[in-house]
């Protein structure tokens, strides 16, 4: 059977670079825009949780903070939750783990969520949405890693994976 070279040559010239460059495209997420807050002081806030507790973020300075924005209906938040439970246990006393749930979340939904999946830290209610706006939260979950001097050193948009979480925590300590 005769083999014609033209289709092979054209296919190789067009096809191989196309596939290679598209594959390289996976290394970058075009939707991720670096947060302008990186390297800057984390916006301070005072929030209450559903049990009547409250936090003044400024008072946490001196110890690193993992600040996680999540919601009870958010499926990717379910996916990352066990990692946060495990990390909070392992770094207890070394790192503060703080959760913030959005305006629309309710005490019942949050309680139900944590009862089933476990609790890794307090869940503060961003009742008027201002904290999410201050941090530029675009979609949930988002996690900010804040150094002990109050500077944001890293941000992860979307669910955390084990490696990213461990590397980010090690960088904090």
């Amino acid at each position, binding site marked *: 059977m005769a083999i014609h070279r033209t289709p*092979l040559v054209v296919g190789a010239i067009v096809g191989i670079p196309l596939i290679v460059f598209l594959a390289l495209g996976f290394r970058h997420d*075009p939707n991720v825009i670096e947060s302008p807050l990186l390297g800057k002081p984390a916006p301070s806030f005072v929030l209450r949780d559903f049990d009547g507790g409250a936090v003044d973020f400024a008072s946490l300075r001196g110890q690193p903070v993992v600040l996680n924005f999540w919601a009870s209906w958010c499926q990717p938040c379910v996916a990352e939750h066990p990692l946060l439970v495990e990390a909070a246990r392992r770094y207890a006393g070394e790192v503060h783990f703080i959760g913030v749930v959005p305006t629309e979340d309710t005490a019942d939904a949050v309680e139900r969520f944590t009862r089933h999946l476990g609790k890794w830290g307090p869940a503060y209610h961003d009742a008027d949405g201002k904290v999410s706006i201050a941090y530029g939260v675009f979609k949930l979950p988002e996690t900010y890693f804040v150094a002990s001097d109050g500077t944001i050193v890293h941000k992860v948009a979307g669910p955390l994976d084990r490696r990213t979480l461990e590397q980010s925590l090690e960088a904090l300590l």
Partner: protein
Amino acid sequence: MMSHFGQGLVLLALLLCAIGSPIGFAAGRMGSERGLAWTRRIALGFAATMLLANVLMEVALLRHDFSVSYVAQVGSLATPPVITAVSLWSSLEGSILFWGLVLGLYTAGVAVLQRRGHEDYLAYTLATMLAVGLFFSFLIAGPANPFAPTPPPVPVDGPGPNPLLQNHVLMIIHPPMLYLGYVGMTVPFAMAVAALLRGQLGPTWLQPLRNWLLVPTGFLTAGIMLGGWWSYEVLGWGGYWAWDPVENASFLPWLTGIAALHSAVVLERKGTLKAWTVVLVLITFLLTILGTFLTRSGVVNSVHSFTQSPIGPAFLAFLALALLFVVVLLSLRVDKLVGDPARETLVAREGAFFVNNLLLVAVMFTVLIGTLHPVFAESIRGVKVSVGEPYFNRMAVPLFLSLLLLIGVGPALPWGTSDRRQVRRALLAPLPAAAAALAVALALGARSGGVLLTCAFAGYALWVTADQGSRAARRRAKKGETVARAARTAILRAPRRLGAYVVHFGVIVTFVAVAVSSTFQTEREGTLAPGQALEIEGYALRLTGVAGVQQPHRFQQRADVALFRGGRQVGTLAPALNIYPTQMDPLATPAVRTGLTHDLYLTLMGVGADGSIGLRAIVTPGVMWIWAGVLVMVAGTALCLVPPRRAMALVEAPRTQTARAAAARVSLGSGGPVGAAGGVGAAASPAAGAPARGAPRPRS
């Protein structure tokens, strides 16, 4: 329970494809009728399984069964039932499941409708379609499994589908139309693979190919238009096409699909462009896969794109595999596709067809390069770049203008002649129409070079379209038939010829409307307190009040704006902001007053605590004619699919010498009998005027 049943159905579909595809290829190779019968049965089984799986997902969505992960992801108790039902295609996993359904229906369609007249190719065609089905079943069963059980705790409510998809009724039909177009391109691809494997392009291949190219092209045309319309009615920026990567992704296969339809006409009439036609069909399919990859892999930033997901690498692997398969197949079998040596001059209709093909492919490459450049730039240099309208407009507009001119020049030229006088006469006749259109545009105040050129070319093309489209009817009327009867007979005898001229008419209308609407848009913005007015293009837009309405799934803030023209109230518009619980920013829902000459488009930009509003007003001329032009194109495509009335008798056996000769022109190699279906005239182009085989062919 639902999850397990759904997953079982998807695994069954996977199994059927895994068995059916090799059986089909073996049946095609051995010419086994029994193997073909089994392949057909399996193809129908695949379709039924996909149908059941989709019905099951619909039931889960409508029953709010949040134990199914996809329902937990896109369902919500507050979402209206219609929106809940169409949530099937509102997110990644559901849309791939729906893709499986459409592919199943097309596979069943081919298995049923082509069981006669395409037998030589059918086994290979179905085998290829099932191979594609195997990949999609794998996606649904694995990386994009919508039936996966929700990890506990099962939520009592969900977030609902993407708010953008809930904002307009067009979202109900825009995605299915695109899917019918995208997935439908699998059929001509499978037919092209079958032709290469058999080493034959007989008439029993060409006619089904044209039909199965027309169907998805028509759906793609409608889908692209509905997408533009949705963008216009929902996104609030006043435009309908932004050269967004995913818009481009749907446009690429449309361009090559149109090119393939035209080259198939030359193949039928002249027996040339065989390899070219097959390559265009193959590329069209590859572009649908590339487009789907771009939409779903998350490698491009777009209003449509899903986030990065595990199906991206799977799609890329499939694209690479399909590309490799196509290249190897072509290199092994392309010798079977060497056509008759070119006998005709370029200054003839077939020459115009070829130039049309080259222009369409040039537009495709222009759009492809612009679309992929940001991905390549980030991959290679690590920089974020975006390619916007200026690139696409500067590169593509001249090519589109040339295509518009060709819509006039091509059909005006006779087939295969080198008689210069005849050519000159044919090309000069429509010039007065071009001059008249130019004069009208100047009289209406148009001074932009692009618009004037568009109008002149449109006038030329319109003349040729009307002249050629009415030629058969006029000839009959001259012989004494009433005009109505002559028109009816002309349509029934050659619906495809007429349909193609209708498509061309729609294209001309769309071209002019796009040129006018994109050049003469006026925009104003202002802050209005109740009672104050914003003036634009003779309108005074007075704010009469602001209202807030709590709806089950959203909160809506609405501004009531009274429209005055010449001191008289001519209507009211109520642009709104919709606030969804799961969306951080409100979504603007524009209000549009559509008219024959222009649209008035209002977007509410914000509502102040004192009841004042930020309002953007846009007046755009001619927008309605874009939608009308595309609808005409779709109607023309549908007309092309109507079988010609006289054809049925000819399908049985072409009796005359002319018929056999015509049929033989499109057969290849030492392939089987060519007269079985007689290559029944008809094509998706005006050029394929379809006088019955054996009848004297009138000179165009």
